[in-house]
């Protein structure tokens, strides 16, 4: 029973949604839209679990860390709060080493950041329009946090890719096998084609060989063989998704539902 009901729910929701795609009549016409709204709402509730998990993990780390640090400080006698303060960097950050349990201060930072954001956002702190104001109002504290902390962190993390893409191409693009050679050669031509160097390098070729001008060659690769590969991938994916969906809807695939606890 406990296991059957979820399977039935999945089946009904999935099957009805598929059929509804072909029925414009109320209430089927907007079923997809409505279900997507339900999903969003469930996701918000679920966030309470996720956020709770975050707080529990970091709260736990922090509590355990500070307790053990105080115990450590109390060791060997003396006025322990002073010792605690003096050796704070070692207790809280683990000093230069990376010792487990000695990094509780970072958990505290995470918690502070989390609650600061909740406070600023949920209470609309500093919003010129007060409670009625839009949470995205750039004047509010919430958006100030966003601009000065969230945004640069996000953008920099993203920007690390510039370095990683270079190191990955250095390592991966070696002509070790026919496949690797094709990968290398294509990437090489496209890379060249995106730079002026590529343009200059092949400018001397006569007009009759204009196909081999690197930018033209790059455009050709993008338009022809690349397109073929993309199409194969996309058609394959669509069949994969259809099969996956059917397996789920028909209850053939049910790992995600967990097991019975007898």
């Amino acid at each position, binding site marked *: 029973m*406990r296991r059957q009901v*979820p399977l039935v*729910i*999945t089946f009904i929701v*999935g099957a009805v949604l598929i059929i509804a*795609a072909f029925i414009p009549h109320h209430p089927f016409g907007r079923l997809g839209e409505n*279900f*997507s709204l339900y999903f*969003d*709402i*469930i*996701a*918000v*509730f*679920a966030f309470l*679990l996720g*956020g*709770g998990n975050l707080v529990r993990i970091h709260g736990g780390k922090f509590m355990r860390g500070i307790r053990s640090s105080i115990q450590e400080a109390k060791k060997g006698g003396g006025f322990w709060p002073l010792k605690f303060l003096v050796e704070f960097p070692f207790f809280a*950050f683990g000093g230069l080493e990376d010792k487990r349990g000695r*990094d509780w201060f*970072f*958990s505290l*930072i*995470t*918690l502070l*950041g*989390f609650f600061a*954001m909740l406070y600023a*956002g*949920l209470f609309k702190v500093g919003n010129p329009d007060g409670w009625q104001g839009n949470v995205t109002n750039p*004047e509010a504290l*919430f958006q100030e*946090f*966003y*601009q000065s*902390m969230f945004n*640069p*962190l996000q953008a*920099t993390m993203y*920007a690390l*890719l*510039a*370095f990683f893409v270079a190191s990955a*191409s250095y390592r991966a693009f070696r002509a070790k096998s026919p496949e690797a050679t*094709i990968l290398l*050669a294509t*990437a090489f031509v*496209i890379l060249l084609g995106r730079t002026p160097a590529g343009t200059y390098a092949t400018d001397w070729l006569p007009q009759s060989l204009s196909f081999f001008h690197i930018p033209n060659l790059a455009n050709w690769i993008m338009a022809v*063989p690349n397109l*073929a*590969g993309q*199409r*194969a991938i996309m*058609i*394959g994916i669509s*069949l994969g998704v*259809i099969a996956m969906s*059917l397996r*789920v*809807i028909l209850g053939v695939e049910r790992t995600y539902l967990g097991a019975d606890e007898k």
Partner: protein
Amino acid sequence: MWMDSPNWVTFGTWVAALLTLGIMSFLYKDNKVYKFCEAVFIGISAGYWFVSYFWQTLLPRLGDPLVAGAKSFFSGSPIWGSLVLFIPLGLGVMMLLRLIPKTGWLSRWPLAFVVGYTAGLRLITFLQSNAMTQLQNSVQPVVRYDAAGGFLAWESFNILLVTVGTFAGLFYFFFSKEHKGAFGRVARLGTWFLMITFGAAFGYTVMGRMSLLIGRLDFLLADWLKVIG
């Protein structure tokens, strides 16, 4: 407002710049500064998203309609439209029942709803936009003539190549056939086409990644250090 004062703006820029450098330090090796930035990032971003969901989904999509529905009910002319919202509300609450061991099994209902929703929705969208559109785009003559009746060898060759490449790629994805003999050779050809696709996408991407870093460097040099214009 106090936040508009030049000092505050400068402070914000400094914070942003130091966090930028902190994240970049990871490239050398993991260190305490990176760890600090990581901790800040996790905390504020989790908070940010929750606040966004709260104001932009929960209240306008669930809270407000329910309140309006309740108001209409008590004012004597009930509008039943919002009643349907008790479905997601109920499912959402069931989600939270995980926290109580005894009722934890009920949380599988919303999960079942979510997975069923995903399966149903995606089956249709991928059928339409991946399968059908790609099939439609693939259907074209592999022999082409221009208006005057002259044979367009190059165009014809390209279309033939796309068609052959698509087929070969699909051969690669066959699961129920051993990649051996003639079939294996075609499948191998398919992997070559896939490799071209990957190489092309990779090569094409390098540029975009560089530009992200340029954006950060531009911030550090122009907005923070003010050494370039």
